[in-house]
């Protein structure tokens, strides 16, 4: 995992901070990921392939592909019902898969462009953020009935819940905000502006903190669950998009889509302990509570990274992004097809000009 090609735009020397276990090809544009500890499986929503990849974690291979709705983005697994759920953005629905038979058993209509999904196993609820519907659907995990549809804001997506405060937090990508919902009344009880491109959230109830990833602002906002105010902005890597709280609640993991890394942030000191190299264009993250292994879905490489986080705590030397070895070198010549004209364009056309090359993907 640490053997990156010469010229890596961002490589962070992590020493023994992490050990790469595997990088498993899963399919096009993997996003949401969940772990089934009992079966030693991971489930990955491959959004451009419209299926869930079922990964055997003993052999590190995909053993099944279960077709769901169009563009499954987020995914959740419920051990009690033994079901896998996907939020299918282009189908405006949630697909439900039996994890034993690996058959699609139900399709539940939700709001427009569902993109976030979180299961509350104790309360037997599953929450779905509907980005273009600007709402959050609340489904019963057992009966699959819609219990409530709650007004959020445009770009509603990722969701986390705080059982100690009877609170759900829904972050709104386009509105750059977070909506707080009372789980007794299903009414919004507060909101807060966060950074632009808010797209992932996790909570640490015992500290009263919600952590919101702001992909365009490039930060993580720490928000009080008591008064719904932003307490501080935390530094992570470039274009952060995913977040998961570690089972021990001492750290959070943030995937940096622009850097190809996973930031480890201390919950108590709110310092970035390390940036661990993962695959290209990382997004969804899950942690196996059984062994602490971390799973990261990489949209660029179409892979699932499996790694062991070996950090005992904050390292003596804080994480620093390595300077790109490209800086100071001549840009390698290119000859690429122009999307609009279909003609080849070469770097010679831009000779003696100052310019920016912006690498992007549409997902």
């Amino acid at each position, binding site marked *: 995992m640490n053997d*990156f*090609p*010469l*010229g*890596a*735009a*961002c*490589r962070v020397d992590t020493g023994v901070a992490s050990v790469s276990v595997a990088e498993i090809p899963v399919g*096009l*544009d993997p996003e949401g990921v969940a772990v089934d500890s009992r079966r030693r499986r991971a489930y990955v929503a491959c959004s*451009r392939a419209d299926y869930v990849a079922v990964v055997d974690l003993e052999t590190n291979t995909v053993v099944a592909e279960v077709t769901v709705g169009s563009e499954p983005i987020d995914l959740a697994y419920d051990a009690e019902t033994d079901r896998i759920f996907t939020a299918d953005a282009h189908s405006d629905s949630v697909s439900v898969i039996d994890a034993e038979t690996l058959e699609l058993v139900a399709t539940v209509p939700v709001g427009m462009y569902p993109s976030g999904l979180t299961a509350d196993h104790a309360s037997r609820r599953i929450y779905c953020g509907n980005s273009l519907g600007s709402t959050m659907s609340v489904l019963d995990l057992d009966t699959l009935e819609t219990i409530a549809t709650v007004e959020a804001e445009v770009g509603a997506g990722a969701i986390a819940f705080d059982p100690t405060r009877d609170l759900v937090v829904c972050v709104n990508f386009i509105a750059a905000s977070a909506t707080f919902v009372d789980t007794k009344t299903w009414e919004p009880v507060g909101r807060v502006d966060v950074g632009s491109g808010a797209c992932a959230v996790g909570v640490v109830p015992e500290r009263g903190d919600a952590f919101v990833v702001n992909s*365009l*602002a*490039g930060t993580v906002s720490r928000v009080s669950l008591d008064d719904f105010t932003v307490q501080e902005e935390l530094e992570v890597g*470039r*274009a952060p998009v995913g977040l998961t709280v570690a089972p021990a609640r001492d750290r959070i993991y943030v995937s*940096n*889509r*622009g*850097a*190809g*890394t996973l930031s480890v942030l201390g919950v108590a000191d709110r310092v970035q302990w390390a940036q661990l*190299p993962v695959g*290209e*264009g*990382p997004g969804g993250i899950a942690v196996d509570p059984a062994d602490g292994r971390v799973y990261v879905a990489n949209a*660029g*490489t*179409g892979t699932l990274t499996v790694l062991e986080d070996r950090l005992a705590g904050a390292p003596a030397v804080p994480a620093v*992004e390595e300077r*790109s*070895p*490209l*800086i*100071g*070198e*001549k*840009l*390698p010549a*290119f000859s*690429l*097809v*122009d*999307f*609009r004209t279909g003609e080849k*364009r070469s*770097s010679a056309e*831009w*000779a*003696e000009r*100052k*310019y*920016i*090359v*912006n*690498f*992007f*993907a*549409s*997902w």
Partner: protein
Amino acid sequence: MILVDIWEGTDPGPEVERFCEMWGIEGTILLDPDASYAQQLGIRGVPTNVLVDSDGTVVDVGLVRIDELEAAVARLVDR
């Protein structure tokens, strides 16, 4: 600015068209469907900006945040 689309996995045409329409993107868009050029540069994520001086020298890489990019562009213009 030259935009270079990578990592679509499928035919990039329709995906890029939809993306540009949604975000109102105009200007030059080049396709690097197998990301071989991006790989040559060691690009590991998107978005990534590469700033190039008039003599072809790379002066900055990364720069996703607007404030960072604006500052880097100002430095590039002043060089």
